[in-house]
């Protein structure tokens, strides 16, 4: 009982922290909380929210959104099936959605997200998260015009998972990357949910293709990562280089016939371990298994 109380207190303290609002550019702002980043686009037509964190965080997230706009949430886009990106859908819409049928929020993700959430084969089915999604897409890009701005949703196949989306706010010139890009920590390559190292690198290269840097490689297109600070193209380059270089090292070790344990012992990420949070062994193992599973 004491442990439970302690756990509740811990959870409570995490979300006692206020969610911060950071205007990015154009109509787009970044909300920063302990659970990661939320992207918000506001205007006369209502609000677009990319990723909703968790149900527990919803009051703080909504309070932050209300600093930007009083209009209802009309669109919710989930960039992956991760609980910290999707589990706030229902609670957030209860607080910030409209009760008018014509303004009912559309909650959209790639169809693989929904498939994974309802599948019993890949862990415990997350029925309530699945039920919070009322729209899916399978043809990329999925786009719509909202608040006078083209909103483009691109599927990034087999990257962090097989249901990842990145969202481009074309007039504001802001990309919301989800967990494909996490500048302060190693990326999670979720192999059981269809992720792969090559897909992740392809997705990062796609972001670089879409982003246009300002003068002397600074500013221009801004990138809101799934976790971590606001970034631009130059920051994505550093991250892409890190993933690519460690991938190349692991690939070379596989070619030499090294086992997973031998690769881990060689510490191919050791010059990045002081910079990126997370467990290097988990990252290296995911790369090893991802490359070993590839057909020649």
């Amino acid at each position, binding site marked *: 009982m004491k442990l439970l109380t302690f756990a509740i207190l811990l959870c409570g303290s995490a979300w006692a922290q206020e969610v911060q609002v*950071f205007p990015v550019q154009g109509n787009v702002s*970044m909300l920063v909380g302990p659970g990661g980043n939320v992207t918000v686009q506001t205007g006369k037509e209502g609000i677009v929210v990319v990723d909703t964190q968790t149900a527990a965080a919803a009051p703080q997230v909504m309070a932050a959104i209300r600093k930007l706009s009083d209009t209802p949430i009309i669109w919710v886009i989930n960039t992956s099936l991760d609980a910290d990106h999707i589990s706030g859908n229902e609670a957030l819409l209860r607080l910030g959605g409209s009760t008018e049928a014509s303004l009912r929020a559309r909650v959209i993700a790639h169809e693989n997200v929904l498939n994974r959430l309802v599948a019993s084969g890949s862990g415990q089915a997350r029925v309530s998260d699945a039920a919070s999604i009322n729209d899916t897409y399978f043809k990329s890009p999925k786009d719509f015009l909202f608040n006078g701005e083209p909103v483009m949703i691109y599927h990034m196949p087999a990257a962090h998972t097989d249901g990842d989306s990145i969202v481009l706010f074309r007039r504001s010139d802001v990309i919301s990357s989800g967990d494909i890009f996490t500048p302060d920590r190693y990326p999670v390559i979720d192999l059981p949910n269809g992720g792969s190292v090559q897909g992740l690198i392809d997705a990062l290269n796609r972001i670089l293709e879409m982003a246009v840097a300002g003068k*002397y490689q600074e500013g221009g297109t801004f990138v809101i990562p799934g976790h*971590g600070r606001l*970034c631009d193209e130059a920051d994505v380059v550093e991250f892409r280089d890190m993933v690519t*270089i460690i991938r*190349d090292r692991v690939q070379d070790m596989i070619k030499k016939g090294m086992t997973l344990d031998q690769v881990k012992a060689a510490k191919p990420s050791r*010059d990045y371990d002081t910079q990126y949070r997370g467990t290097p062994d988990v990252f290296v193992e995911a790369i090893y298994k991802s490359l070993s599973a590839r057909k020649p």
Partner: protein
Amino acid sequence: MSKLAALMLLSLPVFAQVDFSGEWAPLYHENGPERLPGPELGDYTELPINDAARLRADSWDADRISVVEQYQCRPHGSDYALRGLGNMRVSRDIDPATQRLMAFHTHMLAWDSDRTIYMDGRAHPPEYANHTWQGFSTAVWEGNMLTVTTTHLKENYLRRNGVPRSDQATATEHWMRHGDYLTVVTVIDDPVFLTEPLVRSDNWYLDPGQHIGVFGCEHAPELPKPEGVVPHHLPGTNPYLREVSEWYGLPYEATRGGAETLYPEYRLKLNGYKAPPKCDRYCTCTTLFDCQLR
């Protein structure tokens, strides 16, 4: 008479304030070969780097600049901009209502880099704000010395031969003016790549006739490679790391950097080392025009 004295006292600044405004031309008598022709590959001398930084630098391949276009127009970070192509213009903002100094502005020749050094007591941005090449700088007076603190730097280099400096670093600069000469001592703390602070100094002389032109830069692919290739050397395969040791007659271990190699006691570990009888590479390197290879 006493009213006049009071007025004179009022016109004195509350704190010691030196005007750094003007056109400053760099002096390269310190670390000339590193700063003018550019550092040799594998030269990590004078850098208190950790193993992570060393391997990152060993892995660095200069082809990356030709292949990854996004590297081509990257400016130096403001901590490195003082080192090279450092022709600098300094101006200042004075609040007309209070006559208080609100900010210094620096403009560097290289990449037209502009920086504002805020003097108005503002806080630095939150940690989730974006980072820039110049970072976010504030300053305070310490006597006649201006102490500048810069955070929010983008990842860049401690030396432009691949030795990295992380985006978590803080640069503390001490600006000191002695007549027509300016000295800036920079202290870099980087919890990611340094085991102790890196200290270095740079100097300028006042050059009122200096004209800083437009730098300009346009990126373009210079080497045809498949999309997404990032040139680098796999660990243990970089063939160029011993060049600096061989060319300058230095012990290889000493060129690998690290805090220990910075101190005089390190010489005791180099038993039997004899310096080469004469210098034959970049021996007179103090301006852009007198750097001779051999």
